């Protein structure tokens, strides 16, 4: 499971609108870093033990960008889960749609996702999806130690160290960024899959050119193995009341635009006495001590 997120690490001046909401147009969309590591781990498992890696993402048509990147890195298949009715979802609604899509796609042994996305930082979607699928979950994974039969051994990070767990398949694993460095795009796969398109992208192509029809395009892309499967609400046949904004009990109460700025300041001499007085003040203000 991967997610396209705004690049919160590279923020420019115009990203916040005057009302404090995010100006998405000014924020480049990127592959959520820990999800990329999760894919790396999944591909490593495939390299070591065999299998097939299918990637899913829920998002707008533009999220197909990161699905193509998954194909460039080595994923066998990719699927876009997209519908206007999925928009505005909190973690509950998101994990519901994802779990239903996974059921639809079929049998699985392992599900990998990043620990959390850099936009929401909730770290809830992985665990909630595992609950809905009723499978075991191992969070904060940093290494797949071994796998044999229906058992997998995973090292996970805990506060003061790590622990090694054995789990019975199927398992959902959330991955931290220390687990590995995502592999580079493979040149041949980039050339092979650069034209892969999801249904929604084909619809857009058909809209802008009256000579094209979606069905014909889909057939054409399928025949060239360049069609990225797309699941909409209708195809998943799920309760719209549990999707998107409608299915999200989390509501944004208020958005405040907080301006950080310095107020008063004071100079301290770089002498022993100066430092002593600084430490005294910091301790008095409970900044440390």
């Amino acid at each position: 499971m991967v997610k396209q997120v705004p690049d919160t690490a590279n923020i420019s001046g115009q990203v916040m609108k005057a009302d404090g909401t995010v100006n998405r147009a000014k924020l480049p969309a990127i592959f959520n870093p820990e999800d990329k590591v999760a894919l790396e781990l999944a591909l490593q498992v495939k390299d070591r033990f065999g299998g097939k890696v299918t990637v899913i993402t829920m998002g707008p048509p533009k999220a197909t960008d990161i699905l193509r990147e998954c194909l460039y890195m080595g994923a066998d298949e990719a699927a876009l889960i997209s519908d206007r009715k999925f928009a505005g979802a909190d973690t509950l609604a998101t994990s519901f749609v994802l779990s239903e899509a996974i059921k639809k796609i079929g049998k699985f042994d392992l599900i990998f996702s990043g620990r959390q996305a850099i936009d929401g930082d909730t770290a809830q979607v992985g665990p909630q999806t595992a609950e809905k699928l009723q499978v075991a979950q191992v969070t904060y994974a940093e290494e797949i130690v071994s796998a044999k039969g229906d058992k997998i051994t995973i090292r996970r990070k805990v506060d003061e160290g790590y622990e090694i767990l054995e789990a019975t398949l199927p398992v959902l694993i959330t991955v931290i960024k220390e687990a590995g460095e995502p592999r580079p795009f493979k040149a041949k796969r980039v050339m092979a899959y650069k034209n892969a398109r999801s249904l929604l992208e084909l619809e857009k192509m058909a809209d802008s050119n009256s000579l094209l029809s979606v069905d014909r395009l889909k057939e054409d892309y399928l025949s060239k193995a360049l069609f990225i499967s797309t699941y909409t609400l209708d195809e998943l046949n799920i309760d719209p009341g549990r999707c998107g904004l409608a299915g999200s009990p989390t509501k944004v109460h208020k958005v405040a635009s907080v301006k950080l700025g310095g107020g008063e300041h004071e100079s301290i001499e770089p002498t022993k006495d100066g430092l002593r007085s600084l430490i005294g003040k910091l301790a008095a203000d409970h900044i440390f001590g």
Partner: protein
Amino acid sequence: MPNFFTDNADLQFQFDNMDLQEIITLIEDNFSETDVYNYAPADCDDAMDNYRKVLEIAGDIAGNFIALRAAEVDEKGSTFADGKVRYAQGISEALDRLEKAELLGLTLPRKYGGLNFPTTIYTMAIEIISRADASLMNIFGLQDIGETILKYGTDEQRDEFLPKLASGHHTGAMALTEPDAGSDLQAVKLQAYQDDDGNWFLHGVKRFITNGNGDILLVLARSEAGTKDGRGLSMFVCYAGDRLRIRRIENKLGIHGSPTCELHFDNVPAQLVGKRKFGLIKYVMDLMNGARMGVSAQAQGISQAAYEEALKYARAREQFGQPIADIPVVTNMLINMRVMLESNRSLLYATARWVDLRDKLEESIKRLKERKQPFAEEVTRLKEATRIAALLTPMTKYTLTEAANKITYDALQIHGGTGYMKEFNIERHVRDARITNIYEGTSQLQIVAAIGGVINDILKDSFEKKETQNYKGILQKLAGHLAEIREIFLECRKYVTDKNDQYFQDVAARELVEMYSFLFVGYLLLDEAQVNNRKAFIANRYIVNALAHTRKNAESIRNEQYADLLHAGEILI
């Protein structure tokens, strides 16, 4: 997150403005593989899009992975213990990454696992990699070895060696140099002999072998016992193994990440590549020309890195109440560096296209012959491309590698005392640049290689055509300067040939080759300025400077500056 391809505006300009259509059509054999490989292009635009996307991968790895490790690679270097060479950690990691990205067989055909890219694109990749770590280029740039086997080996040899090289599982080495055979490879002694069953073995010593610890080695050896010159040498390919011992690695001024080995061949089993006795006269010349393009691109990458360090430092460093970049003498140095950098890049990729065209025409003619199709047109075009590539390759290597030394020198100068310190990258670039005008043929030998084409004025038609062309605005004045340079050149050439003195011609050759390069590059820059206004600045400084330089060179020739060579014995005490 710097991407060393996309963040380089001038490299982008070259990429966007170059016409590779003829080369792509040849290399793709009219797109015959489109339905065979899902990554083969469907047409020229698709091919260009592929090249761009793959260079973006190279640029990403260079900027975000290799460059971060370069300083440590330089500091730690390769190490040698118990007969084994170990790469610096950063080099091993970078090679692993490049292998995973499938960038180690760029030019080899798809059926051997390569990407079937033109040399021009490979050259761009070398520039990009070298900007991050010049020493890595010495291993990355060994892809020419595969090309030699492709061109001259048997089908069995291609099947055996090329997939290993293209995948990156095996690295290679070119073992040519020996203790007594450096610039003069005719003196190679390493012995090649056959047993009663006709199997070849190699015995002797090779020195200064870049990546001599590689798995597959191309070796130049004396197959004809008793001979003394180049005609007794043949080319062989062999594997590393117990009988091929590494005696030591060199402790060098720069390119520390690239291990330079002394090799002892103790009756190593080998295979003959191509025809006997053609080792030096044909195959090494080919290999060497490829390597010269590689080193030119390496020099360009180092120059780019040094220029950026200089510009960044000059803008950040304040003295006398202003950034030193705003002090006129420093501004002037920076502009000189920038003009050299861009004019050299134009030369590099123009040359790469002629080299590409020559190689792809050769392959195409071979195919046409097999298919019993007519190929007369291709032969005429091949003759032209061969002559021009043979001139431009050494001219490019001379110009770019000398410039890399000048640019890194000035970049360090701009850093002042700080630049002399190891904490800054710039001293590494200075040291790395210093080898580029020495190996794969010194600058002096590049002049020797280029002078024939210059004396024969092989670009005459092209220059004469350019002289009649109309250029816009200030460019017309610059075109006038180029016409004047050509007049001076023709006069000097006449002076030198009339004198009919080989001794004199040998030393005046540098002046003549330089003038000729000014003409070639000058017209390239004028053409670029026609489509891009900013480039008029580059063309202007380049051509005005070229005219001054030409006059100086002409004076050196006409005033018999070199007459004192006859008295060297008295002068050199």
